[in-house]
């Protein structure tokens, strides 16, 4: 596993550089929007990665509720944290794209509003985990995560089932994306998936060590307390 980390780091760096080159140089310029459409190559893969991480959070949370497994609890925390980072990218790059294309930074459109709600749910989840001192925190967080995950399909399918200002799906049924653009999109998604995996891996190890240190510290405090009596 230790040898895999530098390999994954190198692959991620190469894929991110290649993805950036493809997005800025190789991908054809869109006729109506021009160069600003290239934001799509970061915005959409970030959204897909965030959805995937929230799905992992959901599965890990359900596993924790059933089995009370500490590894599942750590995985749920890590996936939510990294998912929030990617969701933040989506919420920042979206308005930067909307300003020149729609003429406004933000509108209370269904897709946009549901994405903001999704972000707020997972930020609340992280705040609960950070500031609650109750021994039941992992259980409460897992329950919140299960309800929070309900918003993910709502966000994803909102543009399929409702008429919204957000652009229609460009991939899958009804999608009309130029194959060269789809190729660049998938390269960037692969790069972001590798980045997410790398960051989750690092964060997971960090959380495991942190919990071990906290355990050792409380044991030390206990022993010191016994010694002073």
């Amino acid at each position, binding site marked *: 596993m230790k040898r895999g980390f530098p390999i994954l780091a190198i692959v991620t760096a190469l894929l991110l550089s290649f993805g*950036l080159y493809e997005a800025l140089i190789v991908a054809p310029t869109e006729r109506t929007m021009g*160069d*600003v459409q*290239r*934001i799509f190559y*970061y*915005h959409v893969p*970030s959204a897909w990665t965030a959805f995937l991480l929230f799905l992992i959070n959901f599965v890990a949370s359900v596993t924790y509720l059933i089995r009370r497994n500490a590894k599942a609890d750590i995985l749920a925390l890590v996936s939510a944290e*990294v998912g929030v*980072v990617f969701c*933040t*990218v989506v919420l*920042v*790059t979206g308005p*930067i*794209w909307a*300003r*020149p294309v729609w003429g406004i930074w933000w509108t209370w459109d269904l897709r946009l509003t549901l994405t903001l709600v999704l972000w707020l749910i997972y930020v609340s989840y992280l705040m609960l985990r950070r500031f609650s001192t109750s021994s039941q925190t992992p259980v409460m967080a897992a329950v919140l995560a299960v309800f929070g995950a309900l918003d993910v399909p709502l966000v994803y399918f909102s543009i399929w089932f409702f008429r919204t200002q957000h652009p229609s799906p460009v991939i899958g049924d009804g999608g009309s994306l130029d194959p060269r653009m789809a190729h660049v999109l998938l390269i960037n998604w692969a790069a972001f998936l590798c*980045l997410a995996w790398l*960051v989750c891996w*690092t*964060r997971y190890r*960090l959380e495991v*060590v*942190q919990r071990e*240190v906290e355990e*050792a*510290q409380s044991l*030390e405090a206990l022993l010191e307390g016994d010694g002073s009596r």
Partner: protein
Amino acid sequence: MNYLIAAYIATWVIHGTYLTILARKYSKIQREIKSLKK
């Protein structure tokens, strides 16, 4: 073009900020491990 550059820079600023937070967390844990070993 300015919007495109702004979006790409914003993406890397967000990821960079998170990685910095992780690096600081790592240093803090390292210090705690050192103090436990004393």
